[in-house]
């Protein structure tokens, strides 16, 4: 309990919000962090109070300007941290290279971001409900391999083949779910098992080679072709649609509510309140598997091929995007939009680094460093937000 019932008189509220909201503008400054006195001593005009005056936060709620409302809304968002990170990255790279907003780089960023985004969203749901899936990376490679083999060599209609491939990934999701929910295997271990299982199946199916689709497959075009003359490709559309749908499910449906509740204290509270915790987790495992398989199919449609390496880094990259996006690794709380922003940030960094001349494979080191920095930053930001939200 960070806070109990002190200092909550109605009269102090506007001032208190103003002070803590203002101090949030400089989250890295140790001075404003510890400076908890509402507004500081009278007569001292800190950057914090000046900023809160500018946006009009020291007004009463109904007298606030639109600036105040926007600011107030923004600072309470969990997505504020990743959004700041994204802006910093975009502004930084734009200053360092003239090519950042070029057609090619926009294509690169969005096509990299789309599949990471889909997988991140899937894993977010699972993570919020208190479980984790290591096998999403291999699922991301395995599903398109099955799909392409089915329609290329076995004469299935591509649509039917896709349905079958996704059904198979659903089966593996079910396997994960049963191991975790019924047999109480920690999800880390259960999905590590699936990870190896799928890797072995990949070896059996294409043995280190790759599959290329030469002829025109309409379904693949619909899933991966360029959108008119824009620099964007179809996968980003699917990603955006998925963001909208999952955001709605997460914030506006019973199921989203239950997912969050299931992630706290191993779901004990939720269970005692009548939430079917086991079922929620089981469904989340299956959805995660299907979505990561589908993301792999999007990527393969864009590339018109699949290699066995597809998705090797993906599980950890998705986790990075999710954590950067403000979802708690301990479950119980998180943000779909944040995960999407995190996925975009990861891709911006990857492309940006290449544009400024870093070796193409180096970016992963940078991502690692960024992850830790952003988590520290996010933790401080959340602390400030908690203070103001009380």
């Amino acid at each position, binding site marked *: *309990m960070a806070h*109990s*019932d002190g200092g909550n008189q109605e009269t102090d509220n506007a001032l208190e919000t103003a002070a803590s909201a203002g101090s949030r503008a400089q989250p890295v400054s140790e001075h404003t962090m510890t400076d908890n006195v509402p507004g500081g001593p009278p007569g001292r005009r800190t950057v914090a109070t000046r900023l809160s005056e500018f946006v009009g936060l020291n007004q009463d709620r109904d007298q606030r300007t639109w600036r105040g409302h926007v600011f107030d809304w923004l600072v309470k968002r969990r997505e504020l941290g990743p959004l700041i990170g994204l802006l910093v990255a975009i502004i930084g790279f734009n200053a360092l290279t003239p090519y950042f907003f070029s057609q090619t780089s926009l294509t690169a960023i969005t096509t990299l971001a789309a599949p990471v985004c889909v997988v991140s969203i899937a894993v977010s749901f699972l993570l919020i409900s208190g479980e984790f899936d290591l096998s999403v990376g291999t699922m991301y490679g395995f599903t398109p391999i099955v799909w392409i083999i089915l329609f290329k060599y076995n004469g299935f209609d591509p649509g039917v083949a896709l349905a079958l491939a996704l059904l198979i990934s659903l089966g593996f999701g079910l396997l994960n779910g049963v191991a975790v929910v019924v047999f109480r295997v920690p999800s880390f271990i259960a999905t590590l098992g699936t990870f190896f299982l799928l890797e072995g199946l990949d070896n059996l199916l294409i043995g280190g080679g790759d599959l290329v689709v030469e002829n025109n497959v309409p379904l693949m075009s619909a899933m991966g072709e360029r959108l008119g003359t824009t620099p964007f490709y179809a996968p980003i559309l699917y990603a955006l649609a998925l963001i909208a749908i999952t955001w709605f499910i997460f914030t506006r449906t019973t199921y989203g509510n239950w997912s969050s509740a299931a992630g*706290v204290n191993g779901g004990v509270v939720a269970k*005692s309140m009548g939430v079917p915790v086991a079922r929620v987790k089981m469904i989340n495992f299956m959805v995660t598997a299907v979505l990561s398989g589908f993301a792999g199919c999007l990527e393969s449609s864009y590339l018109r091929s699949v290699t066995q390496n597809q998705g090797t880094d993906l599980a950890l990259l998705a986790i990075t995007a999710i954590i950067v996006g403000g979802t708690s690794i301990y479950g*119980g709380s998180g943000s779909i939009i944040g995960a999407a922003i995190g996925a975009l940030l990861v891709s911006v960094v990857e492309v940006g680094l290449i544009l400024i001349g870093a070796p193409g494979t180096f970016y992963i080191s940078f991502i690692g460093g960024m992850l830790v920095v952003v988590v520290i930053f996010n933790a401080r930001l959340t602390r400030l937000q908690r203070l103001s939200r009380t």
Partner: protein
Amino acid sequence: MPIKESKPAVGSADTRLEPGAAVFELDNVYHRYGWNEVVFGVSLTVHSGEVVALVGDNGSGKSTLLKIMSGYHRPTKGRLRLLGKDVTFRSPAQARDAGIEAVYQDLAIIDDLSLWRNFFLGKERRRGFGGLGVLDVRGMRAECEIQLRALGLVSIRSGDQHAWVLSGGERQSVAIARAMYFGAKLLLLDEPTAALSIRETGLVLQGIDDAREKGLGVLYIDHNIGHVLPVADRILLLEHGRIARTIMRGDISEDELKEMIAKTPLRRK
């Protein structure tokens, strides 16, 4: 603090029961975890408008009994009766639907969820759209704010605030109010006053009194005998999974009861 009589959100029956009628009965209930037997043939009855306290040392089976009543565990043997009818609960959800609400020590409220999401967890109000489970966000938020204000929590500005704004005692009071709101017939409380200040304890005990006055049956576990004596109509002393004594209100002093619990003989092998 009168709680506004509002329509129960779910189709539960009238909470008003005949005073003195048996709300819930355990009939010769046994329970074991694996080979470890913890409850041996306990029979007890909770009446409408009555507060029954379960006291006993750690491991005497208090919490297990409570979890059996709340649908969290199923008894190995024995019968449960709600309003005279035999019932079996496969899950806490079923028990809640039947009108049994449990409030656990520190597990009543989820910090990371907003107040209204907590208040309606597991009993969410939904809007049409063909059973998709779309939440009636505005309705629930407004109702939650009304209920919290009725509890006297004026410092709450919005149902959207996260539950971490509540102090320990407020959490328990909210959980108790929530139970009554959903039309509970039987209220189960597992150490609701653990780690609370004197003022907060008062708040919780007040909530228990309110529940009794509204005709609920209350079963109450507490380690603090000083909290049990003033509110309990009947005290059941549990020893090694059996009811060792039944004590009526006023029959015993605090010191006597403490001594009785402390003197519980050690378990024989």
